[in-house]
């Protein structure tokens, strides 16, 4: 009987392995889907689902993404889009942390919320959706709030943390845990037509500077709410920052905040 590698190499078409071939290998070689994915990428082949990534990401970069671990803290508006985009890109390990269940007022912007899952834990819904989209992704879902008490365990061995929280004090706790754990943090926040993104590496303390004078729980979103397109946009910019950190490519928003005003269509970069 041919080996797994022989099987895959014989069935590659222009360097691509179709989903049906990968699924057959999983079943007949007794593998998990992620294990099959790693073998394919290790052979310098590409699961066909990533064909449209190919011109921008090499096979080696796709393997780097597959081996990466990202923690997404918060699975509401920002978190839903971030998790979905990371999974479709092929980031192999995603930890999702959120203590909430879906409510009706989430339906205006939270990607995973639907009429039939109101009342269900956001992290459980996210995990089952990602399984339907990309079974090569390993999801760790944590139905709990991120705090400075459990935080360092939750982000242990993670390469990058994404801030998708909705509370300023929680964000400051997250920033502190990331600082202590020596892990980069990509921050995004939204309110009304406005949003901001920054990337904080250990020693930067950017979030502490941004929120240094604020003592409340919420910012302008308390009065302005959150709009679907602003959430999707800020989440997407966060994902672009995450990918650059994972691949060590391009320029990030380290030491800078990108502030978006979609009402007046102004993008401002502020350097700290």
């Amino acid at each position, binding site marked *: 009987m041919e080996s797994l590698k022989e099987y895959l190499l014989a069935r590659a078409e222009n360097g691509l392995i179709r989903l049906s071939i990968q699924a057959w290998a999983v079943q007949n070689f007794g593998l998990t889907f992620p294990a099959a994915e790693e073998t394919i990428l290790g052979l310098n082949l590409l699961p066909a689902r990533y064909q449209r990534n190919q011109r921008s990401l090499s096979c080696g970069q796709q393997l780097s993404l597959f081996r990466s671990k990202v923690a997404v803290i918060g699975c509401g508006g920002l*978190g839903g889009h971030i998790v979905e985009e990371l999974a479709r890109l092929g980031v192999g390990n995603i930890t999702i942390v959120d203590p909430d269940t879906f409510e009706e007022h989430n339906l205006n912007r939270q990607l995973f919320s639907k009429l039939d899952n109101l009342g269900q834990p956001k992290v459980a819904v996210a995990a089952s959706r990602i399984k339907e989209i990309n079974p090569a992704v390993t999801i760790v879902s944590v139905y709990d709030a991120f705090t400075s008490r459990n935080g360092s365990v939750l982000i242990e061995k993670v390469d990058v943390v994404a801030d998708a929280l909705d*509370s*300023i004090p929680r*964000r400051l706790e997250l920033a502190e845990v990331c600082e202590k754990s020596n892990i980069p943090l990509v921050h995004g926040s939204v309110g009304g037509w406005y*949003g*901001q993104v920054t990337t904080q590496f250990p020693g930067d303390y950017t979030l502490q500077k941004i929120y240094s004078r*604020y003592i*409340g729980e919420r*910012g302008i979103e308390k*009065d302005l709410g959150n709009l679907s397109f602003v959430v999707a946009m800020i989440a997407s910019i966060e994902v672009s920052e995450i990918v650059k950190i994972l691949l060590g490519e391009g320029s990030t928003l380290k030491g800078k905040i990108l502030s978006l005003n979609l009402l007046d269509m102004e993008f401002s970069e502020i350097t700290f």
Partner: protein
Amino acid sequence: MKVTVKLFASLRKDRFAVDDFDYQEGATVGHILASLHISEEEAAIIFINGRHGGPDSPLKDGDLLAIFPPVGGG
């Protein structure tokens, strides 16, 4: 002295985007926030000529003051 004040995001509502003001010599950012009815909490990020400042920062003629509100939703 003349100071240019630039407001961002929701701070513009019922105020302005950018405008020039005459202030007394020695005025601080805090004085300007008070004159614009912006609380210190609302002025989350303060920049003077592109450098991070605070309510106690002094201003001089020709300065550009930029003020951003706190954005915290997710």
